[in-house]
């Protein structure tokens, strides 16, 4: 096994792929952790800032960099902020599913899951200018064989799991674009006193250091020929003080002409066209083997 992706791995002679993604939850992620947030208007407004100001500021930065991005939005957030999404996001960016309302698919049966997956896709498709084809798991664990359910509900790719730094295929043909937590803004910047986010009330880190990490990762993804997925949230980096980090990162990425900077759906379509099964020792297949082994042991 070699470290570098082989030449000709990426289309058009590109060295690596880069995807800019936005997760627009309008505070649902925080409410899932601390349900009393909705009754705390001061604290909850920390997250509401995203819709109020962050979305537009991020979009302005993307417009300046002349890039198209991939947005993951829960169905209920799309209903609540339909105008914002229609006017500011949809014309230039792709909208994909972040489920319906932070439901846990590992805690419901297949028919209920199917109903919500379809409802989310339909609702978002009515707003998006793209056909909604991608899904990011918002809450709970990925149930076994969930890839089959997603395909049945009309999705062709997911950006939910880990295990690799280039796209791979589930056994059902669903494409996975693996995501890495160090390339999210929330672990670095999320903060609220009561309820405490993060739990240990960690210091807000040096902005320069965070940008340094994101750029170090990008440089390495380019060196090794991988698929870089930065994951931003309007409430954390769509702020006056941090938008400069986004601008600097985008300026760095766009300074190279050998980077395939595109949307997640584009990367997923390209991977799907190659029809490559993941090898037996790929993490996604080792996971399946692991569950089979454990179940066999119990019998």
């Amino acid at each position, binding site marked *: 096994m070699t470290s570098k992706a082989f030449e000709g791995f990426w289309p058009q002679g590109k060295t690596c792929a880069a995807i800019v993604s936005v997760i627009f939850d309008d505070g649902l992620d925080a409410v899932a952790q601390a349900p009393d947030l909705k009754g705390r208007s001061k604290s909850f407004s920390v997250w509401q800032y995203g819709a109020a100001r962050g979305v537009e500021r991020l979009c302005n930065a993307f417009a300046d960099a002349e890039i198209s991005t991939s947005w993951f939005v829960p169905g209920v957030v799309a209903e609540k902020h339909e105008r914002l999404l229609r006017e500011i996001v949809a014309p230039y960016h792709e909208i994909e599913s972040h489920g319906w309302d932070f439901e846990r698919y590992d805690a419901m049966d297949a028919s209920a899951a199917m109903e919500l997956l379809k409802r989310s896709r339909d609702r978002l498709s009515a707003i998006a200018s793209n056909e909604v084809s991608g899904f990011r798991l918002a809450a709970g664990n990925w149930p076994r064989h969930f890839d089959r359910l997603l395909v049945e509900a009309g999705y062709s790719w997911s950006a939910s799991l880990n295990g690799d*730094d280039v796209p791979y295929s589930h056994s059902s043909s669903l494409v996975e674009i693996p995501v890495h937590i160090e390339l999210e803004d929330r672990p670095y910047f999320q903060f609220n006193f009561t309820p405490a986010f993060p739990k240990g009330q*960690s210091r807000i880190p040096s902005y320069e250091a965070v940008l340094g*990490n994101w750029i*170090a990762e990008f440089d390495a993804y380019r060196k090794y020929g991988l698929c870089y997925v930065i994951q931003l949230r309007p409430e954390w980096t769509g702020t006056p003080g941090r938008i400069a980090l986004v601008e600097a990162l985008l300026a760095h990425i766009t300074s190279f002409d050998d980077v395939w900077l595109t949307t997640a759906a584009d990367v997923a379509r390209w991977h799907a066209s190659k029809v490559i099964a993941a090898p037996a020792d790929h993490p996604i297949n080792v996971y399946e083997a692991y569950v089979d082994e454990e179940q066999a042991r119990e019998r």
Partner: protein
Amino acid sequence: MIAKSATKPAKQSLWPEGRQSAVALAFDVDGPTGDAMLDGSLLTNPRYFTQGAYGPWRALPRLLDLLAAYGLKATFFVPTWVVEHWPSQCERILRDMHEVAYHGHYHEVFIDCSRQQQLDIMERSRHIFQSRMGVTPVGFRTPSGDWSDETAQLLHEFGVIYSSSMRGDDRPYFHRTPRGRGLVEIPGRWDIDDYTALAYTEEPDFPIGLDRISGYADVQKNWCAEFEGYHREGLCWTTILHPKVCARPGRLAILEGLFKAIAAHGESVWATHCSEIAKWWIAQHPENAA
């Protein structure tokens, strides 16, 4: 003013001729093993499983490339569940002339295991190392926290010659058993454990307070400072690094900075396997003189 008494001992190298310090680069290839596999919660958490599996699948091969580029030898502590599921990646560790050593089968918590359970784990691991990789390891690093009072002697009787588990010194020493000298200990410190600066997961949360991921540039400076301090004092430096944490794409550059710092001292650093250091320590300290 009070005159300082001469407290500095005469410089006498602990290491072979021409070597100022010893470096035992060490990596724990845990993959998805550990607490969540032990308590079964991993069965329903493929996201967390794939985060761990990234280590042997993607991080380890790149780490081996980087070690080769700097001509550095290292020791890999591998739970044997990982050997069973990623045999070709693990075989390359030996092909590249590194050492493999014991780290449990599922990354068990030894302090929670009975004497017999500990022995069973060791026997299972030895069988897998012998049958899958054709090697019988001589070293052990305790997985997940502490070991129990009987572990050191049990390992010694099992044929292990060294452990790299403790935190309380900065050079090798011997464990004591009722029957005399036991294992060589090659102690490490949290200061050079990548979990303390870089590991971050949600559900299960690590660190428990979800503290931030450190800036990579600062981490590189800290790790280099640790190495330089040990080298200056002529000690034995080992690392507690995990490919899934420190050998992610952007973090390989941190390791490269560290490897450059080590390489800059040339032959005065004895960068070798833990087992070589343990054997040297045994040879330098005859039992009757100990």
